[in-house]
């Protein structure tokens, strides 16, 4: 099927079978390998990309669903979080990192828009470490860099 996805600000025409995931389309068809495949089952968050401003697991999305939509991958990200991740050592091997960063960018927007999480108390508005951890729990890191990731997000969130 012929589709056109706007990826990192550029329209990318694609001819893909309907069963090709957005993740495989990005990695194998468009050569954008910054988005990682950790489980291909929506369990690890390594494939997180930003679709029209919202974070999604690209492994659970079909490329053809995103015809005409706007996708941002790590290759299209320029954000203070990247520098903060390096400074706070919010990674070791680096495999979960693109997903963590994309997820965090969209998470900050969700929080700004007033979306609550499971740990949000009535009337509280700040982005506490507990809020960050709850909202980022879909992004696994086996190297255990969680403390650094939370510190990086806290710094950027201000």
């Amino acid at each position, binding site marked *: 099927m012929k589709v056109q996805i706007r990826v990192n600000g550029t329209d990318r025409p694609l001819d893909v079978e309907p069963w090709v995931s957005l993740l495989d389309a990005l990695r*194998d068809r468009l050569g954008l390998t910054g988005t990682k495949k950790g489980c291909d089952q929506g369990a690890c968050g390594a494939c997180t990309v930003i679709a029209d401003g919202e974070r999604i697991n690209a492994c659970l999305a079909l490329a053809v669903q995103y015809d005409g939509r706007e996708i941002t991958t790590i290759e299209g990200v320029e954000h203070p979080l990247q520098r903060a991740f390096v400074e706070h050592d919010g*990674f070791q*091997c680096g495999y979960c990192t693109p997903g963590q960063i994309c997820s965090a960018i969209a998470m900050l927007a969700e929080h700004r828009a007033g979306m609550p999480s499971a740990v949000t108390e009535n009337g509280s508005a700040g982005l506490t470490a507990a809020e960050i951890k709850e909202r980022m729990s879909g992004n696994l890191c*086996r190297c*255990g860099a969680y403390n650094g990731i939370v510190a990086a997000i806290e710094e950027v969130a201000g």
Partner: protein
Amino acid sequence: MTETLVPTTTAPHVGRPIDRVDGPAKTTGSATFAAEFPFPGLAHASLVHAEVGRARITAIDTAQAEAVTGVITVLTHLNAPTLRPAPKFSVLDLSTIVSGTAVNYLNTDQVHWNGQPVAVVVAETYESARHAARLVGLTYEELPATVDFAAAESSAKPQKSNPMMGGGGAKGDAEAALAQAPVTVDQRYTTPELSHNALEPHATIAAWDGDKLTVYESSQSLPFMRRHLAKRLDLPEDAIRLVAPFVGGGFGGKGNVWAGTILAVLAARAAGRPVRLSLTREAVYRTVGGRTRSTQRVALGAEPGGALAAIIHTSVTRTSAVGGFPEAVTNASGHLYAAPNILLKQHVVEMDLLPNAPMRAPGEAIGTFALESAVDELAAELGLDPIDVRLRNDTDRDPLSGTPFSHRRLREAFALGAERFGWSARTPQPGSMREGRWLVGYGVAAAYHPIMMLAANLTVRLAADGTVIVRCGFHEMGMGGATVQAQIAADALGVPFEAVRVDYGDTDLPTGPMAGGSMQTASVAASLLEACAKIKTSLLALARRSGSPLRGSRADAVEARDGGLYLVGHPDQGESYASILSRAGRSHVEVSIGSDGLGSKLKFMTRFIRDQRRWVRAASGAQFCEVRVDADTGEIRLARWLGAFDIGRVANLKTATSQMRGGIVMGMGMALSEETLVDPRHGRIVNPGLAEYHIPVHADVPPIDVHFLDDPDPTMPLGLLGAGEVSITGVAAAVANAVYHATGRRVRDLPITLDKLL
């Protein structure tokens, strides 16, 4: 403390929390992992797994799979290229430790475990290969299989040890001393199978060019893998190149050659095209071995004052009928506490399952769970503080062998940790520290991991412009190796950190050590320091021949700093590298260290054995945690963690802290949630995915406070001990001990899930 007025020669880069050199690549998506190298004409492979345990394949039907659009070939034992048998383990050739299994994939009709790959589909797209793999029809003659550990345990046999994997040993008569001891603990502890779950699933791209082979591989042991492949394919080693610039986590799971690597190579051979084989997460579980299950007995006998009279630690673990790695489970129990009577015995049972493999601190990770739980139980019996019991039995000589430790700071680690954690606020009675609905518990345990070194070959090149290139085929899985080695080279040659480039992750480079056993950093550093010393000698020789101000200076009177060589104590007398090299008419100097020749290997083995006789070397530490257990539901939350560690000198405070946190987080998973479940009827792993195997997530991990004693080991290069594994040891015991303190319930069976508290 004496004050120094003169600036010391203390190195300016080593020890500092310098950002990782690969940070920008990893945060922008430009770091390229094994599966991500573009190749024209790349084909994609997918595995077909056996769905039964031990069996013989009687028929295999590939017609449906071959009919799928885009399928190039379906390889089975009937048509696959020939493969030579996997080498058996030999101490004379350490590369033999990477034979993950003895199975001659697709060269046999025998199935040895449920999940063994029995066919490979190669297709134009990943999706076609995966779809077609499901259509391969297999008929088996099923054979009896030993897949139930609980049933097989009683037939375990004594485990042989070797210089790389110790454990076992005896001193005095421990059983008699236990029988006479006034205070005793004698308990059984169990730990489940565990999976590494590196976030990057294993991936291989294999590309043949005639009889030359290039392999992009997620590997933590490039040189050993290359030698293994050379033997399997009957090729000279230099016909094979392995490349792994970035590896998405390993933890021991990417040290061996597993089916995916071999089968990608065979598939590329058969298809006549470069082939990529990216394992699915389920395929990782079914083809890459994990940590063995264990049953352990720890018995401790003590005097009322806490002095140990007897330590007994026995273990049963499993390997496989087709390979596996016998874990030295009782190892730490021979090194941590002085006791006149010690008995350590390890047993192993071979099963018809995927062979086990080393996983972060094999042996010590699970052994310290049992030992350090038992010490806590003993402290409760004695009515003493668990830290006091440990310090009462501390020693500066190895308890089992009597050999001195090269360096021992366990006492200091407990003292520092206790102070920073606020251990004195703990009231000893279990259940005595409640906050609302939460039962609060403090737990403590010792951490211990032995230190060894491997040979590392490398070259260092210093150019007239002051830039340095270090070339060594080591591995980067997140330890920060390239960053740390650049710090070391910068200090040794007196150049800025930014002037050093470190090349790694490629067998075209001089042969590096494998990344395992916490050995890589110190092993590379030893050769790097030697190379830098030789560079200085060569430069001084060049200077002597020309009209340099350094003419006539002895090597030990000269230091490398500020981009040149200068007389010690005379800041103005000396010369820049640019000047020395330009006067000598040279653009650079280069030296190489080590070789793969027999002489070099013998020299290394001799030193290895000599060092082992002379000292017991280890990294150690003290783990502290606070848990909160919901009084009604039994839900367990970790509230905070503190680790105080002796890893010798800390090369980079930032990356070393991350290493410690990483091991602690993996230990948290082991303590509270992780287990690979093997169906005891059919031997199939029933939770092969991250949705069913629960590694810690953000919300599970509290702030982890890491402290280092930062005291150089006098027998190691720069005083560095290894850092990768000590951090996971003692973690599960500290959690179990804290849960006991919170609730009065002692859980001896990992993981500590809430059902075990209700």
